[in-house]
């Protein structure tokens, strides 16, 4: 068996492709599946006819859909064609009418018998079955099929339709072959053969909870009463919604039938609708069911809850809800089976349209696990699943079937299961709904409903909020408790360096240590009546409300816990848990506070930290100011308003300007000039902005001085600039071609965090080799490593302005200047010393006393955009 999928582009392309296919000389039955989201009925039949002319012996199986599944992706607004050629097996197909000439539905028994008549004697193993939503007796039909086709696996469902085509055709979906299309038909394709084996399974993600209830009255698909109470009221109050004014949560909280508790029953809510509106009394489709129920008021406008197929009174239901972890585990189980199936030559996949409405990412994610296989299928409105040797009609499911005649494996994408964050993110909505319900619950006036509801919500939460392996609440639970139980004192505990642990110790040892770590924390928390959460692998949290414990007590307890974890015995690996106690947490501040605290802790290398969650949160004004600054910077970049100003550096020996320092200024649209202090930090935090203005600045300075022979200029270079390879190569390129590279001095800030001194020295050497010069800026402003400074062979050393400024009043400042001056005397390599911020004569006098080479400051020159004489 081979299967080959392609997208329909044009008839010519199609002919080309199919011809290649039929060149394959080996004989065998061919099944061609067409799932189209772009063709109307007539167009589809036309396409099928065309295919039939090219591949005359093919069995064509066509359905409309809203989106096709192909190559592990969801493809919208396309038509996908999948060709399966059998090696020895048989394919038969048939399109049976589901309604008779008078418009009445064909009874399921007869339909099943008709099917049996067509499909006898072809060793059917797999029955691909599609029908349309108009046929409401699908459940019974499948039951009959189970009877007439024992051991046959069925897959398929209700054909769906894309909105565009639905508008054109006014129908709910259709099936077709080369002869006709219909929205009242049953399309069957039997695949059989002695060698053929197949496996079908499904995933839903539904978790049944709570007690059983019973449909006590129904009409068609409409559930009229449950446990003898009005179905709509019963349903909505049971999920915490306002029965008078419900929101649409039927997909999140479906019913399941109690014998198949993971298969949801998809329901639609109608308001102010009569049974007659839904099931027209005059329509022959419904005439039978109307004749059975003369007692009902058919025109009463009411709230209705309807399934897509007939439900019978007496059916037992349970409430359920769908959540991320169940979706993941269901899919994982499904995937494992398909992956391990030996004859996986062809994969069919059908997914329910409603899955995309529950969780936006759900469908894409679950299909992505089959990304490298030849999966082909489409979106449907109801599915047929195979469970425990029986076929069932299902809703809200993802069905996958694998079949083949010879051993074969396909490539899949198991990594999908390690990237499930997108699903968890979707969970937030469900959680939010549950928050709301909890809140409402406390105000609710329906006492009994509130009681039942509370149990329901708690069950949902239990499933949602507990971490996978242990019975410990997870991060979502922490969020919820912060919100609802006012837990505002939270200690985040984390162990870093797990990677290095993994390189040295055995997995078993690590597991043991982990278990001990978790249980120590959990037991301690329990003993102290705190709540314990596992956030992620080694990260846990212990939380307490401020109404039960003071910060001092809480901190003391956490310190004790940290010590006891340190003191763990030799049986375990020694771990260093890092504790961060946050006070006054809210859902909004918790994580941002934790992350910023963690950065601080890493920088300062501290293992225990207490802080207010509100601390360091920006206030509105400063945020606004930041955005304003971003605008200014952007404006300056766009309108060429990054302007270098130049300040002369005065040579104390020759009493003239020796060179200029280029200083960056920005101008806004009103002409206001901004100094670096106001914009540099903002620019740095938006790295690209900083890089851009740096580049503009450099290029302007280079341009201005490239032609000048006798004046040199210095320009600031930050550590970030050194990491910007573009900028650095721009500098190197310029210098290597510059006429007078010696005219350019690069000032490196001393107080920046320089992590990689080798890189810096590399830069300095390169600059020197290119003939330019280096200056160390702001010397004495940080806690200098003097050896580093000495190792940078700078040509100038600029004493920090804060020292120079105070040299008249402050002996210590004078001592520092003396120190630098003496150092210079002792050095073999000569460098020039610059004193900046020389603002008045008094300072200059002091500076001259120390024989400082250059002075820079308002006394000699103010920064100007233009230089006289240039």
């Amino acid at each position, binding site marked *: 068996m081979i299967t080959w999928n392609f997208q329909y582009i044009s008839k010519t392309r199609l002919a080309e492709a199919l011809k290649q296919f039929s060149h394959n000389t080996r004989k065998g039955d061919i099944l061609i599946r067409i799932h189209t989201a772009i063709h109307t009925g007539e167009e589809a039949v036309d396409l099928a006819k065309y295919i039939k002319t090219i591949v005359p012996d093919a069995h064509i199986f066509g359905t409309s859909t809203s989106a096709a599944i192909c190559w592990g992706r969801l493809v919208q607004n396309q038509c996908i064609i999948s060709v399966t050629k059998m090696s020895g097996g048989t394919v038969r197909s048939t399109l049976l009418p589901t309604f008779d000439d008078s418009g009445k539905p064909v009874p399921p028994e007869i339909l099943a018998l008709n099917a049996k008549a067509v499909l006898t004697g072809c060793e059917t193993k797999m029955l691909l079955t599609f029908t349309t939503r108009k046929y409401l007796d699908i459940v019974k039909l499948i039951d009959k099929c189970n009877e007439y086709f024992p051991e046959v696996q069925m897959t398929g469902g209700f054909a769906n339709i894309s909105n565009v085509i639905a508008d054109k055709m006014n129908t709910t979906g259709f099936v077709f072959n080369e002869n006709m299309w219909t929205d009242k038909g049953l399309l069957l394709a039997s695949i059989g053969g002695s060698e053929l084996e197949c496996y079908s399974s499904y995933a839903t993600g539904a978790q049944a909870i709570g007690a059983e209830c019973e449909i006590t009255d129904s009409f068609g698909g409409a559930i009229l009463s449950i446990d003898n109470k009005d179905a709509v009221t019963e349903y909505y109050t049971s999920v915490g919604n306002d029965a008078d004014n419900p929101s649409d949560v039927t997909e999140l909280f479906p019913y399941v039938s109690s014998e198949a508790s993971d298969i949801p029953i998809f329901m639609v809510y109608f308001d102010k609708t009569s049974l007659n509106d839904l099931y027209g009394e005059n329509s022959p489709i419904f005439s039978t069911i109307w004749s059975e129920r003369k007692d009902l008021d058919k025109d009463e406008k009411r709230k209705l809850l309807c399934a897509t197929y007939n439900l019978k009174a007496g059916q037992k239901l349970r409430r359920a809800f769908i959540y991320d972890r169940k979706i993941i585990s269901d899919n994982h189980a499904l995937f494992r089976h398909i992956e391990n199936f030996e004859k996986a030559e062809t994969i069919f996949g059908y997914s329910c349209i409603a899955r995309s409405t529950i969780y936006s990412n759900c469908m894409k994610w679950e299909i992505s696990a089959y990304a490298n296989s030849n999966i082909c299928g489409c979106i449907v409105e109801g599915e047929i699943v195979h469970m425990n040797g029986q076929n069932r009609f299902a809703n809200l499911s993802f069905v996958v079937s694998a079949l083949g005649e010879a051993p074969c494996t396909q490539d899949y994408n198991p990594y999908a299961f390690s990237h499930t964050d997108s699903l968890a993110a979707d969970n937030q909505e469900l959680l939010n709904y549950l928050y709301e319900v909890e809140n409402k619950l406390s105000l609710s006036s329906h*006492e009994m409903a509130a*009681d039942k509801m509370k149990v329901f919500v708690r069950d949902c939460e239990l499933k949602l909020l507990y971490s996978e392996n242990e019975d410990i609440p997870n991060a979502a639970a922490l969020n919820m408790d912060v919100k609802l139980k006012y837990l505002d004192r939270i200690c985040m505990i984390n162990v870093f360096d797990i990677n290095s642990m993994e390189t040295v110790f055995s997995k078993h040892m690590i597991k043991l240590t982990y278990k001990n770590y978790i249980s120590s924390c959990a037991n301690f928390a329990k003993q102290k*009546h705190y709540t314990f959460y596992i956030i992620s692998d080694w990260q846990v949290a212990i939380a307490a*409300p*401020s*109404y039960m414990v*003071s*910060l001092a007590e809480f901190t003391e307890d956490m310190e004790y816990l940290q010590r006891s974890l340190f003191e763990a015995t030799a049986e375990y690996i020694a771990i260093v848990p890092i504790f961060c106690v946050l006070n*006054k947490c809210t859902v909004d501040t918790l994580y941002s506070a934790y992350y910023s605290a963690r950065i601080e802790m890493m920088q300062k290398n501290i293992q225990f930290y207490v802080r207010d969650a509100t601390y360091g949160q920006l206030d509105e004004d400063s945020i606004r100011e930041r955005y304003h600054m971003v605008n200014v910077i952007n404006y300056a970049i766009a309108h060429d308003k990054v302007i270098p100003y130049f300040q002369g550096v005065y040579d104390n020996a020759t009493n003239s300007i020796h060179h200029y320092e280029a200083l960056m200024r920005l101008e806004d649209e009103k002409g206001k000039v901004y100094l670096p202090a106001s914009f540099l930090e903002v620019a740095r935090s938006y790295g690209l902005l900083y890089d851009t203005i740096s580049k503009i600045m450099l290029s302007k300075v280079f341009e201005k001085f490239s032609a000048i022979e006798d004046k040199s200029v210095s320009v600031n270079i930050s550590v970030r600039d050194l990491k910007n390879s573009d900028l650095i190569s721009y500098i190197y390129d310029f210098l290597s071609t510059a006429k007078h590279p010696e005219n350019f001095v690069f000032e490196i800030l001393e107080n920046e965090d320089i992590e990689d001194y080798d890189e810096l020295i590399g830069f300095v050497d390169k600059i020197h080799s290119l003939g330019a010069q280096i200056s160390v800026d702001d010397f004495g402003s940080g806690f200098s490593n003097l050896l580093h400074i000495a190792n940078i062979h700078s040509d100038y050393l600029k004493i920090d302005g804060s020292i120079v400024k105070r040299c008249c009043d402050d002996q210590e400042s004078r001592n520092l200047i003396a120190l630098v001056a003496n150092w210079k005397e002792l050095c073999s390599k000569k460098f020039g010393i610059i004193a900046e911020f020389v603002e008045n004569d008094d300072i200059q006098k002091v500076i001259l006393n120390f024989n400082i080479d250059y002075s820079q400051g308002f006394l000699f020159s103010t920064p100007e955009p233009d230089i006289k004489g240039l």
Partner: protein
Amino acid sequence: MRKRKGEKKIIGLMVEEIISDFSKEYIQSVINAVRPDDDIRLIVLAGKYIEDTDAFDDIRYYKTVYNTIFRLGEQCHIDGLIIHLGSMSAEKMARVKSRYSQHFYDIPKIFVGLKTDKYTTVNYDHASGIIEAMDYLIKGDGLTKFCMLGGREDNVDARDRKEIFVNCLRSNGLVYTEDQFENTDMSTGCVEEATALLDRNPGVQAVFCVNDASAKGLYDAMKLKDLTPGKDILVFGFDNTRMSGSLSPTLSSIGSSDCTLGHKALELLLKKLNDEEVESAFVPTRLYGRESLQYEMYDYSFVDMANADQSFINRMFDDCFYRYKSELNDDRAVDLKRLFNIFMSKIFLAIKKRYISFEEYNEIERMINKFFEKGIMEYTDAIKLINSLERLQNSLNSIQRSPSARIIVNHLFSVMRNNAICSIAEQKNIEKTAFTQTRNNLQEFLICGMQSEGTPEQNSEKLLRMLGLLGLQNAVLYLYDEPAKFDHTHTMMFPEELKMKCVIKAGKLYLLPKERQSCILSDLFIRDELPLKCKGFATFIIFYGDYIYGFLMCELAGDIYDRGEHIAIQLGKSFYINDMQSKNIIDNDKE
């Protein structure tokens, strides 16, 4: 004076006296207003009230010397002052003011309980509380015969309260004559005046006392006449001090409704220190009903209760624990209001659901125990709380229908009541133990002082060591090398040079080595040796007769308000004796 940047702000609290209930609570309210992050050190300078009519006797002399303590406000570094000298008449104020230097005027100040446009002041809005009480009595109960036990003529607040009282009567069409009024010294000892008032007004239905202390006098007077407050005559006081809750029967009293005087004053002073514009403020008052005048500040309606509305629970809390809201909440401490809200909500919910699980019950019980363990009783008086609880319990019982839930809820209420009673008993016990301890300490101190066989130097060191026996937790002792002599002119200034002799930190005594003792007077309150964790200190002058030996600064905590002066006297006396003895030795040697 030197500018000090980035260091603790020193805020002086000048009060007339430290021992009265009102002062204690007023000082405490300022302490409570200091947030944990505020870098503030409070210094209490408490004097003695001297009435112009006081005889020139020993006591007056003592008081005069005692009051030189106020000079520290001028001579020491202080960043701001909150001055509450309620009984200071304007002319006396002017007289006192003339004695101070310009420097003193430059210190930012807030005056509490002073009517003047010249300074920023904080005053009670007397009218709101008094009118509430009088309206209730006149319009609600239809009473017509009122009396007032007033204060001193020179007390601004007392005059104010009288005026409002009289206006209330007149505006309600009732007659007022001076017979219905009697002046007192505003202390608990005004039994005589109270008796006179009662004698003059035999059919009186309600008496307004100018403060809680004078109400105590009235209580005593009524007892002599076999009258019961609250039954025979309704009584209400002013200031809503803790005393009002401990009297029997408990005293209804008018007190600040949201923010205390001290809180407001500190708030304004801090603004002033930040160069912000500040305006004089009034602190609104309300009547707090107790046994002597049954009055409910809030109604517990069935509707509220059935809905278990959050705001209703909060109001209930404010009613039961009326002191909590006025004492600044430290966000690092346990949030008792929320705790109350949480467990009350749970109880209400249980009633609504007519069901409470065993786990839930345990949880609530744990919360209630925590609630009391964390000292909620500090914020209420026991009788009032128990009454409120009872009222609530009765209301709850009347609306609930499930017998099983009722039993459990009632049990929870009894847990609360037991806790309340236990914590009162415990408090009483602690007080009693502390009292015995104090007496024993002092006794030991005195006994040790009797034995003096060493050199004068040895003796004085021994004396300092004995300071550790007094049971002070945090304190500093400054002494002059030679005692300063009290100067009868009003320009008396303390000598600049003195010695910091010893420091007590967390109950441990540290004697300072000689070379580190020297200190100048202006640094008295800013020394680094002062225990850092204390929010404030009370300063006591140590003197005996004319001889001023130095100053004792004690942490504002525990019973220092009551004991401080006594300790200072004992110290003064000991130093005096020591001095005399060493002089004798020297004299003997000479002979």
